[in-house]
């Protein structure tokens, strides 16, 4: 499953309609609990264990055409998508996540200095609990965020 959280929809519309200040950057984090549309912040989720190549809060994404490298306007399916560049974690010093409990979802958050307070905007399933062994990479390929009116 993938989708926007309601917090993400709200922040997106507030930015568009009210000109609120956007986050300077986003983060992609790995979690081992299941996000839903009602998820608000990272405090609602359980992030994977830090260490062995995974830092608290995940990997930052700059709001530009390098990190969001594909935009799609789909008139056949009445939606638009933005694609995130490939995000790569490399296990170093042992398995990633370090406690062996696999990542099940990737989430996009804002950049609040306190990780637990970061708004969760969007989430996507990794298709199972993902663990990689030392020196191997865990790559999130072409993660897509879509806006569909239904």
């Amino acid at each position, binding site marked *: 499953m993938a989708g926007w959280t309601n917090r993400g929809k709200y922040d997106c519309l507030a930015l568009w309609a009210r000109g609120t200040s956007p986050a300077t950057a986003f983060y992609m984090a790995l979690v081992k609990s299941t996000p839903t549309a009602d998820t608000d912040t990272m405090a609602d989720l359980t992030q994977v264990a830090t260490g062995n190549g995974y830092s608290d809060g995940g990997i930052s994404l700059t709001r530009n*055409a*390098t990190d*969001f*490298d*594909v*935009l*799609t*306007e*789909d*008139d*056949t*399916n009445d939606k638009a998508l933005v*694609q995130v560049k*490939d995000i*790569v974690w*490399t296990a170093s010093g042992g398995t990633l996540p370090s406690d062996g409990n696999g990542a099940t979802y990737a989430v996009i958050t804002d950049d609040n200095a306190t990780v637990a307070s970061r708004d969760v905007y969007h989430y996507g399933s990794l298709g199972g609990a993902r663990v990689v062994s030392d020196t191997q*990479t865990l*790559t999130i*390929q*072409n993660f*897509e965020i879509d806006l569909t009116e239904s």
Partner: protein
Amino acid sequence: MDLLKSFRKPKWFVLKYAKVEKRPADRVYKWYAFEPGVIYPATVKRIREVIDSGEIPEELIDNRAMPGVDPRSVAMAYASQAKQLPNAFWEYALQDRGDFEDPIVIAIRAEALTLARRWFTQALSVAVGQAVGVHILKDERYRL
């Protein structure tokens, strides 16, 4: 020699099916328009070719991959996903959406069409080598 090789067109060249779309307000992304009735059959044909031959689809190999990451990894992942879909999925993908009512068949057809879209999008991104915009034009036959 390597430089020349890097400019060689892949066997399946996505830009053959694309039309440059001018968007003067967007100076960052390079936009291309696709007719679903052209790009989906071409992509599905190519995917089936890859499934049959077992090759790594060179049009998806991104030499801009991060250091330490195999530039073929995305291509191999897409080929692997394609191989996991039963043959019928690809048959359904090219049939008119209006022909289907069974929600299970609609869902598996959507899975195949989504992978096809991601396939030609990745091929475009690799071929253009910069941020791209993909405009999929209206065609109800290819609705998910």
